[in-house]
């Protein structure tokens, strides 16, 4: 392993994108979706997550450290790529390019989002409840910032899932890779819906 450091880090990067980060993303958006059933419903779900035993350990091991590792190596990967969609405008090359673009957008979005919510709550400047998100998202600029951020993150996850299936050698034949493309497209649409639906509720109360 020691002599295969780059190999190990790249495989770890790929794995972390799905487990645990991807799983956490889905869980996070599904919990948010409780907002659609009313503020109490959301508050109950959010405080259930908040009151999980060993919350700090769970957050650190399942969320912070994996995202930190994935983001740092991810930015490096973006940096060593020379994109060429102008010359080679194939579908997969576009997806490859968008994977990098959404990686950067997602990094900006997540940094801001964590600062505005988790960090402020941690500092005691805010409380984790429906009205926190409501006050953020009723501002139209922030609403659209969140829409772009959520779609970017979900795209990055769904397309990353496709890439994961190839990087781990599950989908090898062109046919299986194509089927995985359609499957991850469905993942993208479904998870985006879940995410955007709750944003609309927070912003417009519907």
């Amino acid at each position: 392993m020691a002599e295969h450091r780059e190999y190990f880090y790249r495989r770890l990067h790929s794995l972390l994108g799905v487990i645990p980060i991807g799983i956490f993303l889905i869980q996070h958006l599904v919990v948010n979706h409780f907002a659609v059933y009313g503020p109490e419903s959301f508050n109950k779900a959010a405080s259930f997550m908040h009151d999980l035993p060993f919350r700090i350990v769970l957050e650190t091991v399942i969320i912070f450290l994996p995202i930190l590792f994935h983001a740092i190596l991810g930015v490096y990967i973006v940096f060593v790529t020379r994109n060429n969609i102008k010359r080679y405008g194939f579908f997969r090359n576009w997806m490859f390019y968008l994977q990098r673009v959404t990686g950067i957008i997602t990094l900006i979005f997540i940094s801001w989002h964590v600062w505005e919510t988790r960090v402020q709550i941690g500092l005691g400047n805010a409380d984790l409840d429906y009205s926190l998100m409501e006050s953020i998202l009723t501002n139209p600029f922030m609403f659209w910032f969140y829409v772009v951020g959520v779609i970017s993150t979900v795209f990055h996850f769904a397309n990353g899932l496709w890439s994961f299936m190839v990087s781990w050698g599950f989908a090898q034949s062109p046919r299986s890779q194509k089927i995985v493309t359609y499957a991850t497209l469905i993942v993208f649409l479904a998870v985006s819906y879940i995410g955007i639906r709750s944003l609309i509720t927070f912003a417009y109360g519907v």
Partner: protein
Amino acid sequence: MAEQKTVKFIITRQDSPDSAPYEETFNVPYRKNMNVISGLMAIRENPVNANGEKTTPVYWDMNCLEEVCGACSMVINGTARQSCAALVDELEQPIRLEPMSTFPVVRDLIIDRERMFDALKQVKAWIPIDGTHDLGPGPRMPEKKRQWAYELSKCMTCGVCLEACPNVNDKSDFIGPAAISQARLFNAHPTGEMNASERLEGLMEDGGVTGCGNAQNCVQVCPKGIPLTTSIAAMNRATNIQSFKNFFGSDNAH
């Protein structure tokens, strides 16, 4: 007699590995069925540019002239391909010729593909059967396997797939699709299989198979139609299995 038809070439030239590139335009007499190489030959015969100035002949590389050696690859109207197989009648004019940008330029259109040969060395893309005594005939290969392995064996190390790959560049040490596919070819061979793990170890070294980010341009541009992305995914699986074997300590000699 009617006026002689000409073909216009705009060529990116470079006098030495370190000098700055520049463009030079040439008007070459048209001949029926000419290809890019015959145009370059006409320039060599009469090295006069479009302004009527005498200049040095344009340098380029070639060998087989039938798209099997890979030496003549260059970027023609924005697409990397073999100049011997590029027919002038099928190209938009003016015809722009550039050296492939992924490789260091030696002179004009000649590039140095050494990194591809280093990559083949990294993955040990050969079958070591040298010895002092006759080993007899090797094991046979199933016909079905032979068929797909034959497709992989068509690689001519032309470099077009590396040129198209966004992850092969001077900032990364990724070995590129061709060598990954060659590792699969030699691991598929019944004798080559005996050293399969050594090739997989090569793929796990820095710049190896994980350098691929699945942009999949390679499979679109390979002039030999080699299923490069299938090879890459297959080698992803094989290296993963190998690394589990290495780590958890089951039989890893083979």
